[in-house]
């Protein structure tokens, strides 16, 4: 392979999308404004639960500024939820959360539309609301009047051997962990522009969805249109992190309104609306029990997971489903655990529905596992790193089937742990902490080893789970330029760059000859979307496969023209060359030209053109990515402030397409971990009123909260998939909560059972009065 140029995969190629974004030429949904666009604003429920007595749409119907006003009787459609009550697009008889859409007003601009919504009188008789999961689980008050239960999900797997392991254990550690509700809060809010299409009577919906095809299918079903009559286009998308996965009532209302009016209808969620209407996440409780032998052998783990669905079971995935499913899958981590069991409950509450948020279920799972290990280590008098080593899966045990259903095919868990500990200087840690303590500084170190389920594959007969494959078309135009039509689309991950890198190596062309288009159901092949660390793995594999198919055809054409064997043709630097005969070459541009414009010169019987659409199916349950994070934090008694002093990430995400992009994903994920552990909580009062309705109240990580010099070390164990990727989009957050929360536990000497940890708690925990040592031989 002497004529091969250096591969582009693995290099820090500058992103291809940056030029337009830096010039202010990115085009997001809010930037699109076709002629005659009408602007929608929603009338929303001000109460968490109530009976609607009257919605006075007539009060504005005759206002000359109103283009249309629609309520439940105009649009009586419902979403098809997998569990729990059906969800009306616009509430009819009952409202069940603050922010639930009741009516929509269309006017010539957003200012006027909002004015008009305020003039719609809404008369609601308040009903008792349930906002806490414990209260919901107990029953009594139901989230929806007339329903018998709030429980919408039960999933148990608790072997009798687990109870036996607990009964016969040397040490049993029990704990309850809680996560507060969060919201993903991308900087671009949700938004929809629906444009009727006179051809076929359908419409085009421009929106930042993470799953264009899934939304198309849902919309077509609701509108009773053929799937071919509905087109979803995602322009530039300003972050998503899971919140743009769901099929939202607003998407469908805007689509229905546009069809009814036969003119474009646009709705851009404002930030206040985002707090009430964006599907939320987390807010779960976990009752955990772990059993150990005297030598530290981990013999049993059982966890009861209770997660909120909010007022409705979100379509397609409720937080109650995905938090418990991915949580119970992730809990065993990289450990050999004798017996494992879980009991999952999903419950309704009179709050905004829940859905996915980056690494859904994983952050809490890793925190629980890693916290239990720390607590067991203290009680057993075994060093916490040593306890992990004793129970960690080794390279010789691969492939290893976990009790969580994962098949782990990497043996790099110990390597990741040891590397991370080395980088942080773990051997000298106790000395360092003691020195800090003598100066009155409270520092702590937290360890988090993890296994993240990525790129969900074939999960069995359940139709409600993810699409297990993805698709890409690679097309060489007559000029030799390549168009890639990717199923997976970007919300900022840089897929235009990484997919071009993959294709460039296969095709032997420069990246600047490749244009990646994505996020258009009319152009792009069927896709499961971008979520769950799947786009790089499955979209990348499909891209590699499709580019390889085109490359094979180019080799055959070159071989024919150069009178050589296709096996002897190298594609590199825009040329097809006979290996060992540099003078025997033809440009790829000429191959492209001939395959379209001089088809008579192709090998006999060969179909003209250079194009291939390929689909790559992950036939396994999940792929896995793994690694270890170690955090060092300092806590301040006077202010309750925190500071992340050091942070090390060692991760095995398989083959890296672009290290800068991977590291960006890791940094962003860890920053969201800082938010999860110290800052972010959606607060409702006991009556169900939302207290965090602006970015002043809901604190996102800021410049001073993050880690100045994060060290990121890559291990690259190729996966079995073409390209060898394992999925890195979520790994940062998957482990960060555990590393940071454990560091606080280490710094305070108090068991940390709930995140976020607020400044007043930090101040209290590290104060002289509050500080005491954790139970355990090591610290006594």
């Amino acid at each position, binding site marked *: 392979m002497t004529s091969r140029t250096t591969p582009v995969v693995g290099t820090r190629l500058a992103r291809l999308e940056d030029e337009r974004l*830096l010039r202010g030429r990115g085009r997001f949904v809010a930037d699109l404004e076709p002629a005659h666009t009408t602007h929608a604003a929603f009338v929303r429920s001000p109460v968490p639960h109530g009976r609607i007595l009257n919605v006075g749409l007539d009060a504005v119907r005759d206002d000359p500024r109103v283009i249309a006003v629609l309520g439940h009787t105009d649009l009586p459609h419902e979403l098809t939820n997998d569990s729990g009550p059906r969800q009306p697009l616009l509430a009819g008889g009952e409202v069940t959360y603050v922010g639930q859409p009741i009516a929509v007003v269309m006017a010539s601009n957003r200012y006027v539309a909002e004015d008009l919504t305020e003039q719609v009188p809404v008369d609601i008789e308040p009903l008792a609301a349930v906002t806490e999961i414990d209260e919901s689980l107990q029953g009594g008050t139901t989230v929806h009047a007339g329903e018998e239960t709030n429980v919408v999900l039960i999933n148990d797997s608790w072997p009798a051997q687990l109870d036996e392991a607990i009964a016969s254990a040397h040490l049993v550690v029990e704990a309850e962990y809680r996560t507060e509700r969060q919201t993903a809060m991308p900087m671009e809010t949700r938004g929809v522009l629906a444009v009727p299409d006179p051809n076929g009577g359908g419409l085009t919906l421009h929106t930042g969805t993470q799953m264009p095809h899934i939304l198309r299918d849902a919309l077509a079903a609701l509108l009773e249109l053929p799937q071919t009559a509905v087109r979803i286009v995602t322009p530039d998308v300003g972050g998503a992190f899971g919140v743009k996965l769901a099929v939202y009532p607003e998407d469908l209302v805007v689509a229905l309104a546009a069809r009814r009016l036969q003119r474009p209808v646009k709705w851009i969620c404002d930030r206040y609306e985002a707090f009430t209407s964006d599907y939320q996440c987390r807010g779960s409780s976990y009752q955990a029990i772990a059993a150990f032998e005297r030598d530290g052998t981990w013999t049993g783990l059982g966890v009861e997971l209770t997660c909120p669905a909010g007022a409705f079971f979100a379509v397609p995935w409720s937080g109650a489903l995905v938090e418990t499913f991915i949580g119970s899958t992730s809990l065993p981590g990289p450990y050999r655990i004798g017996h494992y069991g879980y009991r999952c409950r999903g419950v309704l509450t009179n709050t905004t529905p829940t859905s996915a948020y980056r690494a859904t279920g994983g952050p809490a799972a890793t925190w629980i596992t890693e916290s239990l290990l720390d607590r067991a280590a203290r009680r057993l008098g075994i060093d916490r790193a040593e306890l992990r080593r004793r129970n960690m899966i080794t390279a010789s045990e691969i492939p290893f089937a976990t009790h969580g259903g994962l098949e782990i095919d990497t043996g790099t868990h110990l390597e990741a742990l040891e590397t991370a500990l080395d980088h942080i200087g773990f051997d000298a840690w106790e000395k360092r902490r003691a020195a800090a303590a003598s100066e009155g500084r409270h520092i702590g170190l937290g360890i988090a080893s993890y296994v993240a389920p990525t790129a969900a594959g074939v999960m069995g007969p359940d139709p409600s789970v993810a699409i297990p494959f993805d698709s890409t078309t690679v097309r060489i135009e007559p000029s030799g330029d390549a168009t890639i039509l990717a199923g997976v689309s970007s919300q900022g991950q840089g897929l235009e760059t990484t997919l071009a890198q993959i294709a460039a190596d296969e095709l032997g062309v420069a990246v600047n000859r490749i244009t990646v288009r994505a996020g258009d159901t009319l152009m792009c092949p069927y896709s499961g979307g971008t979520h769950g660390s799947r786009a790089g793995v499955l979209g990348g594999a499909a891209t590699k496969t499709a580019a390889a198919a085109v490359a094979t055809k180019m080799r055959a054409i070159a071989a024919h023209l150069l009178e050589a064997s296709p096996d002897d043709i190298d594609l590199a630097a825009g040329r097809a060359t006979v290996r060992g005969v540099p003078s025997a070459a033809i440009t790829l541009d000429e191959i492209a030209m001939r395959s379209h414009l001089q088809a008579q010169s192709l090998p006999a019987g060969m179909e003209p053109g250079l194009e291939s659409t390929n689909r790559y199916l992950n036939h396994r349950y999940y792929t896995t990515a793994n690694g270890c994070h170690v955090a060092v934090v300092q806590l301040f008694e006077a202010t309750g402030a925190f500071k992340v002093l050091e942070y090390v990430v060692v991760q095995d995400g398989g083959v890296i397409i672009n290290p800068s992009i991977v590291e960006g994903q890791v940094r962003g994920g860890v920053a969201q971990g800082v938010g999860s552990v110290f800052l972010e909580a959606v607060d409702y009062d006991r009556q169900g009123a939302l207290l965090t309705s602006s970015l002043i109240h809901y604190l996102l990580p800021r410049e001073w909260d993050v880690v100045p010099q994060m060290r990121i070390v890559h291990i690259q164990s190729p996966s079995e998939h073409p390209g060898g990727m394992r999925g890195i989009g979520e790994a940062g957050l998957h482990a960060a909560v555990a590393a940071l929360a454990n560091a606080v536990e280490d710094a305070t000497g108090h068991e940390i059972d709930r995140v976020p940890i607020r400044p007043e708690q930090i101040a209290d925990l590290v104060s002289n009065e509050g500080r005491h040592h954790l139970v355990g031989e090591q610290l006594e």
Partner: protein
Amino acid sequence: MSAPVSLEIVVNGATIDGRVDARTTLADFIRDGCGLVGTKIGCEHGVCGSCTVLVDDLPVRSCLMLAASAHGSTVRTVESLAGVELSDLQKSFRDNHALQCGFCTPGLLMTAQALLESLGNEEIDVREAVSGHICRCTGYEPIITAIEAAMRPRQEPAP
């Protein structure tokens, strides 16, 4: 309803004579009135910084300023930064992987631009200078690095 107001603003070098509702924000005027949609509206309550533009060379959250209040002012938006080539600041963002989704980027670029233009020889804490911006994607470090890199040639004459 609000009464229309006449205003004259120089936006990216072009004089705009217009009439707007008195309540129109500068952000909406720039986007809808001038067609310069590079300026992004992130929160409309002055916290996220995405809508930052330069008004008479100072960074301003255009969601918190009325267009009418900018009468007689000179406004610069992200569209003003590049010529045929990206500016050094923009290149530094690209080279340091300082953006992912790119939604907060135009506002950050304008704050950074004002910082670069006002540089003397004093020590500048870039982290502090851009602390009025929220980025949900990057974890901020590449942004700080990119701005520091763009500042360096201006602060230190080449040896």
